[in-house]
């Protein structure tokens, strides 16, 4: 069932490319340009996914698997990831889909990200991850829709039914989404359409991935680690590795079809050094945090996982710190 990962990835890549979905921009634009276009996309899709995931879990189509909370990984690791994405010129998904658009800086950022993530996951730096994993906090869920030995969600914290929690959560996000002014942008795919498509894909991804015995939804970091394993050992491509390859293929198809494919190179070669450092920080941070902006922010926050909510806050803090250092000062 690995091929379903490739299919999901291709669709994901097309949506990312058309919707220009980059969390690095979503977090940063609010601070730097007072532009909330991508943040609106984000809050809209998180609310929608939160409800869909719980509904499909109650229908026993999916089993939800929120990541365990880790007080060190979800804060320090996530902060490091946030710093890295600004240097790399994109988050984990932004860098991955831009590879398919011909952005050469993203090629190096992606390689550096994957290599460092693999090193922390199972290589020379794995002692860091092992040291931190000890602090994982697992939850005793009251609802049967969650896997055993997974992390706490808002529903566990407030001790209410996950569906009711999801509705309250979505309502809060949608009040922000629809009751405040949204920055205009002439784009190929409206943020509302991108949000609906991505939410549907998220559920489909979870379902297909579960059939490949990976109980989670969309992700990036695990896929890059798998690709590095496949390149350097006799490991086989798994669902998430195929998904990441699919993103690159889908984005390339979408970019070529939209006449937006181009080999883009910066004039100052030092930029390549910057993006490689950024990619390395992202790889380190993502593995320590137990996920990147897709695993945590796009998939885990809709699960209402405490780990993912805390990680996303620290992604944003790291992002703002580095954006301020590089671009914010007068």
């Amino acid at each position, binding site marked *: 069932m690995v091929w379903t990962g490739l299919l999901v990835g291709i669709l994901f890549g097309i949506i990312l490319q058309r919707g*220009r979905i980059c969390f690095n*921009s979503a977090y940063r634009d609010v601070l730097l*340009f007072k532009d909330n276009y991508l943040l609106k996309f984000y809050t809209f899709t998180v609310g929608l996914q939160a409800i869909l995931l719980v509904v499909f879990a109650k229908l026993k189509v999916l089993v939800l698997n929120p990541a365990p909370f880790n007080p060190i990984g979800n804060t320090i690791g996530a902060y490091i990831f946030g710093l890295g994405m600004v240097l790399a*010129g994109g988050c984990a998904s932004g860098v991955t889909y831009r590879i398919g658009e011909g952005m050469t800086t993203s090629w190096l950022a992606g390689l550096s990200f994957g290599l460092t993530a693999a090193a922390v996951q199972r290589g020379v730096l794995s002692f860091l991850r092992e040291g931190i994993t000890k602090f994982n906090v697992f939850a005793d869920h009251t609802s049967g829709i969650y896997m055993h030995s997974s992390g706490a969600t808002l529903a566990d914290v407030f001790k209410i039914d996950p569906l009711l929690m999801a509705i309250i959560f979505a309502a809060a996000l949608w009040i922000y989404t629809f009751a405040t002014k949204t920055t205009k*942008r002439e784009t190929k795919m409206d943020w509302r359409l991108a949000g609906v498509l991505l939410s549907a894909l998220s559920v489909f991804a979870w379902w297909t991935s579960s059939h490949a015995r990976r109980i989670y939804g969309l992700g990036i970091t695990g896929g890059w680690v798998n690709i590095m394993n496949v390149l350097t050992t006799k490991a086989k491509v798994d669902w998430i590795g195929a998904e990441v390859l699919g993103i690159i293929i889908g984005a390339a198809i979408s970019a070529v079809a939209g*006449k937006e494919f181009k080999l883009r190179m*910066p*004039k100052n070669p030092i930029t390549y050094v910057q993006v490689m450092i950024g990619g390395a920080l992202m790889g380190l941070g993502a593995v320590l945090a137990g996920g990147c902006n897709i695993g945590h922010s796009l998939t885990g926050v809709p699960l209402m996982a405490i780990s993912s909510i805390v990680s996303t806050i620290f992604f944003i803090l790291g992002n703002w710190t580095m954006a301020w250092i590089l671009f914010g000062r007068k």
Partner: protein
Amino acid sequence: MAKYEVTKLLDVRGEVCPVPDVETKRALKDMKSGEILCVWIDYPMSKERIPETVKSLGHEVLEIEEVGPSEWKIYIKVK
């Protein structure tokens, strides 16, 4: 070709996000009222985001000209 009397040309092709946006903002800050800035970009997202940022700062976007495959020139008149 000289459609506008461009005061300053900013070539930010190939730069990573959000360098084109930031450089545009910085250039506009140093320019005088009525002068024209031409921003030369090759990233589609910049083409969508820069004009909105510039407008919100009160400047006027004269034209977004397609000059090649995935290449555009944005002409901005400083307020």
